[in-house]
C-alpha cells in the first residue's frame, strides 16, 4: 500500500494579467481519495491542477501537499519546493508528452535513472514491471510514434508511476483518445486507485467519475460551485450553473 498523501488548497488565487482564473479556491483532499474536477472550459480546473504540482506559480493563498507547502509568488525557493512536491505527485497530460527520442521503456526509466539515481538494471527491471502492469510489456522497445494513443497514455502513466508518487494528477487524459481506446486507460487508473494512490482528475468522463470517483468538484469561473459524492453532485446539483453544465455534458 502507498503512503497516504493529503492535499490542502487554501484560498488559492491565480491571475493571468487582469483576468482572475482561480479566485480564493479552498479544497481539502483526503489521502487515497479520488477527486474528479469538472466544469466548463476556462473554468480554471487545469490551472488548479498545474498549481498543485508547482508547474504554475500563483498570486495568493497556499497549497499543502503532504509535508510540503507551496507559497504564492515565484522564486528559487518556490521552485525547489515545487520539485519536492513533484516527487510525490505525478502528472499525466492530455497530449501524452512522451519523449519522442526514447522507446517506451526509455521513457519510463529516464527519470528514475537521472533523478533517483537508480542503476540501469534496476530501473529497467522496475520499468518492465510497470509496462507489464499497464499491459504494454511487449511494446517496451517501441518508439512513441509507433504506438496508438491509448498505448501512449498508458506509457505516460507507467512513466509517472516509475517515480513512485503518492498521488497522480490527470489532466483530461482521455480527451485526445478515440472512444474505444479510453477504456484501456481508465482501467489502468482504477487499478492504481486500488493501490491507495491519491488521484485528482480533470475529466469530462462523467460515467467514469460516477463509477470511480469518491468526490466530484464542479468548478466555474475560478470558483467551486459544487463539491460532494458523485451521486449527490451529478444527480442533484444545487446551483443552476452546475445544473446547466451537467445537463449539457451528461446527455
Amino acid at each position, binding site marked *: 500500500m502507498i503512503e497516504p498523501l493529503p492535499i490542502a488548497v487554501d484560498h488559492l488565487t491565480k491571475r493571468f494579467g487582469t483576468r482572475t482564473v482561480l479566485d480564493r479556491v479552498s479544497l481539502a483532499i483526503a489521502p487515497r481519495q479520488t477527486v474528479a474536477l469538472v466544469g466548463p472550459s476556462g473554468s480554471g480546473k487545469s490551472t488548479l491542477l498545474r498549481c498543485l504540482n508547482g508547474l504554475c506559480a500563483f498570486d495568493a493563498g497556499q497549497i499543502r501537499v503532504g509535508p510540503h507547502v507551496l507559497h504564492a509568488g515565484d522564486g528559487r525557493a518556490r521552485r525547489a519546493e515545487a520539485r519536492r512536491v513533484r516527487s510525490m505527485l505525478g502528472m499525466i497530460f492530455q497530449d501524452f508528452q512522451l519523449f*519522442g527520442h526514447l522507446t517506451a521503456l526509455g521513457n519510463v526509466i529516464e*527519470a528514475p535513472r537521472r533523478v533517483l539515481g537508480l542503476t540501469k538494471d534496476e530501473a529497467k527491471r522496475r520499468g518492465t514491471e510497470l509496462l507489464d502492469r499497464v499491459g504494454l510489456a511487449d511494446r517496451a522497445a517501441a518508439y512513441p510514434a509507433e504506438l496508438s494513443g491509448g498505448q501512449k497514455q498508458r506509457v505516460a502513466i507507467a512513466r509517472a508511476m516509475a*517515480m513512485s508518487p503518492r498521488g497522480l494528477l490527470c489532466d483530461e487524459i482521455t480527451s485526445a483518445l478515440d472512444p474505444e481506446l479510453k477504456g484501456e486507460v481508465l482501467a489502468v487508473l482504477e487499478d492504481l486507485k486500488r493501490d491507495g494512490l491519491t488521484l485528482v482528475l480533470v475529466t469530462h468522463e462523467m460515467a467514469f467519475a460516477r463509477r470511480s470517483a469518491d468526490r466530484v468538484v464542479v468548478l466555474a469561473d475560478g470558483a467551486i460551485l459544487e463539491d460532494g459524492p458523485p451521486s449527490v453532485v451529478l444527480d442533484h446539483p444545487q446551483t443552476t450553473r452546475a445544473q446547466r453544465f451537467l445537463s449539457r455534458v451528461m446527455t
Partner: protein
Amino acid sequence: MRSADRTTVPTEGLRRLADEETFGRFLARGTGPGPRAGLAPDRPGHHARRAARGGFWALGLAAWLVAALAVAAEPLPPLRWAADAEGGAPYVFRDPTAPGRHVGFEVDLAEALQEELGRRIEFVQYDFKSLVSGLKRGDFDFAMNGLEVTPDRLKAIRFSRPYYVYRLRLVVRQDEERFATLNQCKAVGGVVGTLEDTAAERLLDQLGVRKRIYDSQVEPYDDLEQRQVDAVLLDLPIADYYARQRPKLKYAEEPSARGFYAVAFRKDQEELASQFDAAIDRLWRSGRLQRIYQAWGLWNDDQQALSGAEGMADVLRESARQWTPARYLPLLLQGAWVTIEVSVLSMSVAIALGLPLALGRLFGPAPIRWLAAAYVEFFRGIPVLLLLYFLYYGLPAVSEYYGLAMDLKLAPLQAAVLGFGLNYAAYEAEIYRAGIGSIGVGQWEAAASLGMGPALAFRRIVLPQAIRVILPPMTNDFVALFKDTSIVSVIAVVELTKQYQILAKSSMKYLEIGLATAALYLVMSVPLGYLSRRLERRWGKGA
C-alpha cells in the same frame, strides 16, 4: 603635372616628334591614291594629264592641311602604362622623398621607351594581381611591372621582347642551420613565403615545397624575421631591395631558375607590341638599358641573355608538359586536407560557441539575451572576408599600436578557424534557437513533472529531440562552409580551390586538374550528405 595616381613623363621635344611622325604617316595615307589618279587619264592627252596632276597636287595639299590641322588639334593620346606602385620597389614605387612622384627602374625604362617610341607614356596605378585581367578589359594600353613570361600568360598575352632577366633568391634567417637550399628546406618541412602568381610560387609548387602566399613584398620578410616562415623565395630585385639590408636575414643558395620580364599587351595589339619590341631592342643595343639597370644596382651577367632572348615561349610550353597527375595529385590532396582541416575545426568552434549563444538568447536574463542577439547580428552582418583580414593582419597591428603585452599574431590556420568559427557560430546559434524553440513547452513540463531540473531536462529531453530539427540545416551549413573556405587564401592558407588555381595556372591543364579537384570535393561532400541523411533517419525515429 604629377599627381598621386598618375605620372606623366612629358618632354616637349618628344611631343613634337610624336606629332611629326604621326603626321608623316597620315600624309603617306593621304597621298596613297596619287599614282592611280595619275595613270587613269592617259588617253585624254597631255593637258588633261597635267590638269589631272595639278588636281592631284591640290588634293594632296588639301589633305596635308586637313591632316596638319587635325594633328595640331588632337595629338595621339598618351599610352597608358599600368603597374602597382604599392610597395613595388625597385620596379615602380613612390619616391620616399617626394610621395607624389613615382620612381623605379621601370619608371626609367618607361621614360626611355617614351623617347624611343616618340609617344607620351602615362602611369596608371593598378593592383598587381589584376594587371592581366585589366589588360584584357582594356583599362590601359600595356602592363610593365616585373611580369614574368609564363606558359599560362603566353596563351592570353602578347609579350614584348624581354627587358630583364631575373633569378629567384632564397632568403633565410641569419641563424638558419637546418637547410641552405630549397630541396633541403623541403626535406625539413620548412614553409617558404612568396607572392601570389609569380615564378617563385610556381617553382615551389613544382618542387612540392610548403609555401605561404603574401600580398605585398615586405610582409614575407617581416614574417621571416618573426619566424612565421622558414624562408622567402622571390625575384632577385625584390630580395636585393627588401632583404639585403636586414641584419637578421641572409641569402641562402645561389640564385636559380632564370626567367624574363616583358611588357604585356593584348593579342590584338600586335602593331604596338612590335613597336615596343623594336624600341627595347634599340635600348638594349645602345646600352641605355644597361645604364638603367646599373643605376639601380640591378645589372648582372644574366642580362647578356637578353641578346638572344627569342623562342623562350617554346621552352615554357615544354615545362608545362611536365605536370603529370603523379605530380599534381599529391598537391591537390594537400589542399583538400587543408580544406577539411579548416572546415572541421571551424565548424567545431561554431557548434561549440553557437549553443551557449542560443541558450543565452532563449533563456538568459536581459543583458545576456541582448549580448547574444548583438553577437548574432554583428557576425551575420559583416563579411567573413573582413573578419579574416582583421584577425590575420589587423590584430598584430592593434596589439602593437596599443603596446599590449600579449602577442596577438595568429598563424594563418588559426586565424582562418577563428574567423569562420566566429562567423558561423552566429548562424549555428540561430539554428539551435529554432531547433530548441521547436520543442514544445509540454516536453519541458513533462520532464519537470518527473522531477527533472531545467538543465537535466534540456540535456536529456529537449536537446536530443531538437537535434533532429537542427541537424539538416547544420549539415547544409557545413557543406556551405566547405566551399566558403576557399576564401581563406587571402590570409595565406592554400586549400583545395587555391591549389587548383595555382596548379591550373602553372600547367595550363584547367580542365584535367579542374575535374580532379571537383572529384575531390565530391568525394568529401557526398558522404557528408549521406551521413546527415542517416543521422536524420536515426534520430527521426521517434518523431
